[in-house]
């Protein structure tokens, strides 16, 4: 709050560059390879999608010239492209670029995360002409529209590159140091409105506290992933603004129904009832979350605010009653979590809660690969991890639901005819109403059966200096920070 900080900021802002502190760097900068938020935050100003969400989270054309033409059987999609749009290297956007993008995300060997969504649905794709892209599906796929709204379009020569990014967005990636800094400058030939900023610079600070310090000291303007423990102190600081929105932040948390002890529904329900949701909310998330019930959270399609079978505070007596009905003898399980701090804190709070009804929990913390090993080998009892789903799936988190479907390769062993059918509907239908209704019902069943029970739905928390223009919270709700639309305001903003 000292004047030296203020003058440092003023000094720094002369160059018109917005500096953003992020928690981690993407593994590579090909925006087609990873669906994680880190890639997306950095790719947002550079690449654009065929369709985009408006502020009411409806999909509207962006690079596409209009709505896709879908054949009657729903198997052939034709997407018209706008003409005259150029990439940051001056090349014009054509159907070939979209086809190259599709080719990459459908390539089994590429390792792209998108393959998960397209595998088994996309049969072929091609360019009808320079401005029309054609996609042939094997079966009707309502979610295709959602994917087209999320999939960035990359210059054909860059689709496979992992060391460069070329899109049609307002900023061009100028230079970067892997894992550390990413520098972008405004692209003069941008087809939309000219941005206020001359450039954007991302710096990676893995440690939450130092990330925060650099914001306080005015070294950066914007901070993603504010450490939950520190939200209080940011809120109290008049020079900083903190935005907390319910977003598609998920806690993937499900159990292996095919094995003891979770094969016993009473055991599952007892565990669900003894889950210390309030403890997690207050101790781990500093209140920046919503009490969780089923797998679908408040920012997602199918959210049912009235569904509240489990209390905030664990109902231990009830849980013990449930446990008494369980036929399994086991009173212990292993909780496998990811390596982040939040998961660890959460696991410890939960374990302490479960210990109160006599269940002994071993916490096993594993990094990505080994964590996946467990998931794929189905050698877990309960899996838990935090992740953000918005980028690849929009306002609906289908991947998180996959284990509940008995036909999924990731099935956790839960077999429920109705869920399986509803899931098919969700994937197939292009009617959002139907999809939302199906999701609501799936959520209800999973809550009832206690297969998936995230303790809370964390909020997205972003902090910024008062001298940065306000964020578009509607975009933030689906994890879009959209720094390209921000501007630097001398003296601070008034909200």
């Amino acid at each position, binding site marked *: 709050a000292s004047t030296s900080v203020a003058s440092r900021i003023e000094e720094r802002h002369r160059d018109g560059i917005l500096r953003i502190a992020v928690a981690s760097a993407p593994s590579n900068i090909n925006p087609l390879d990873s669906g994680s938020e880190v890639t997306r935050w950095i790719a947002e100003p550079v690449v654009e999608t065929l369709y985009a969400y408006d502020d009411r989270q409806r999909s509207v054309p962006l690079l596409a010239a209009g709505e896709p033409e879908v054949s009657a059987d729903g198997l052939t999609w034709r997407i018209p492209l706008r003409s005259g749009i150029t990439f940051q290297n001056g090349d014009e956007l054509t159907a070939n670029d979209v086809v190259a993008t599709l080719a990459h995300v459908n390539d089994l060997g590429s390792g792209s995360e998108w393959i998960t969504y397209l595998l088994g649905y996309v049969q072929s794709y091609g360019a009808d002409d320079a401005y029309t892209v054609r996609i042939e599906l094997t079966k009707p796929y309502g979610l295709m529209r959602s994917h087209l709204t999320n999939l960035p379009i990359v210059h054909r020569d860059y689709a496979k590159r992992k060391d460069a990014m070329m899109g049609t967005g307002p900023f061009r990636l100028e230079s970067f140091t892997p894992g550390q800094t990413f520098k972008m400058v405004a692209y003069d030939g941008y087809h939309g409105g000219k941005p206020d900023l001359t450039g954007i610079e991302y710096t990676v600070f893995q440690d939450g506290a130092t990330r925060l*310090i650099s914001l306080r000291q005015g070294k950066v303007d914007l901070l993603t992933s504010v450490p939950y423990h520190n939200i209080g102190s940011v809120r109290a600081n008049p020079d900083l603004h903190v935005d907390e929105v319910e977003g598609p932040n998920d806690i993937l948390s499900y159990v292996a129904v095919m094995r003891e002890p979770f094969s016993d529904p009473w055991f599952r329900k007892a565990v669900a009832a003894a889950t210390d949701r309030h403890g997690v909310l207050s101790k781990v998330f500093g209140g920046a979350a919503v009490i969780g019930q089923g797998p679908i959270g408040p920012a997602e399609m199918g959210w049912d605010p009235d569904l509240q079978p489990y209390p905030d505070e664990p109902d231990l007596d009830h849980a013990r009653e449930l446990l008494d009905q369980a036929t399994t003898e086991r009173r212990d399980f292993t909780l496998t979590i990811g390596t982040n701090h939040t998961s660890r804190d959460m696991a410890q709070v939960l374990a302490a809660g479960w210990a109160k009804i006599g269940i002994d929990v071993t916490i096993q913390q594993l990094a990505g690969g080994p964590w996946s090993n467990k998931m794929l080998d189905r050698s877990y009892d309960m899996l838990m991890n935090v992740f953000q789903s918005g980028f690849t799936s929009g306002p609906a988190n289908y991947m998180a639901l996959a284990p509940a479907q008995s036909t999924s390769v990731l099935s956790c062993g839960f077999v429920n005819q109705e869920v399986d059918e509803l899931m098919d509907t969700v994937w197939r239908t292009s009617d959002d109403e139907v999809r939302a209704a199906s999701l609501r019902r799936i959520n209800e069943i999973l809550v009832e059966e206690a297969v998936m029970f995230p303790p809370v739905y964390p909020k997205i928390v972003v902090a910024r200096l008062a001298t940065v223009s306000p964020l578009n919270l509607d975009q933030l709700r689906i994890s879009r920070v959209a720094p390209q639309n921000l501007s630097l305001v001398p003296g601070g903003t008034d909200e």
Partner: protein
Amino acid sequence: MTMLEFMVRRTLNAILVLWLVVTGMFFLLRLAPGSPVNSLPPAVAADPLARAAYEAEHGLDQNIFIQYFDYLFGLLRGDLGTSLYDGTSVMSQIASHLPVSLELGGLAALLAMVPGFLLGCWTATRRGSWSDGAVRVVTVLSFSVPAYWLAVLSLVFIGQRYPDMLPTAGGFVRFTEDPIANLKVMLLPALVLGLSTFALVVRSIRAALIDVLSFDYVAFATAMGMPQRQMMKRIAIRNAIIPTLTVVGVLLGGLVSGTVLVESVFQIPGLGQLMVTAFLRQDYPLALGCSVFTAMIFLGLNLVVDALYFVVDPRTRTSTQRRTAPVMA
């Protein structure tokens, strides 16, 4: 033995050890449970088609010995494969991280060894005095304080006040970008890293010097009236350095280990941090590459120490003769 001969021998030995390290690590990694394919997004990894395609692309479907020889030949060509995590070339990753670690380690070594040497010599001649006691207390404390704890504390007590001193709070700046800012940012980590080395150098030099000062040849030189200063320079220090040099090998190991921790705390993008991340992610090719490089650096540094040893202690040249000195009489 000539210097060249001696070094060639030592180098060959180092290469043999390096080969053992590479071979051991390679096979152990391949025997480990869990396929590297599993680090793909779960839904991709779970799909047999995608799995097979990925394995074919990365040569994982081949016989393990073919993979091994591929790796060895790749190593010779400077190609260490690609990272499983992000598909970049391991070599290029190492190339970008290594200089930072070398700078950090070098700086720490410089900050530790030079003052450590001087202080060690100084206290040895003041044995039993209060300054000697004070130095002893300081050195014991210095190597009893874990670098990572010190790093965390310095983040708080120094970082709050002088954020520019911290790579974490200011973003790391490379030497090539801005030497001054880089040195500013590296100073604290180098000090933290070098502290225990400093203490051990002081203790080792002091002990060796005290030892040497009680030897016959020092007594003779003194009895011949050689001035103290000359005696120290010509005889005592020269002979005291030899036992210290053997310790330096261990110290270097400590420095290399230390960079891993210190880089993690201070978020310095060096080889250590790269390695920790690689290990945590089980990014085998990257972890293996980093380890091989670390071993290489470590063995290389030990070669340098050997060479120094050869220079400082001419007895090594006739090592075999020395063992059977009576023969030469």
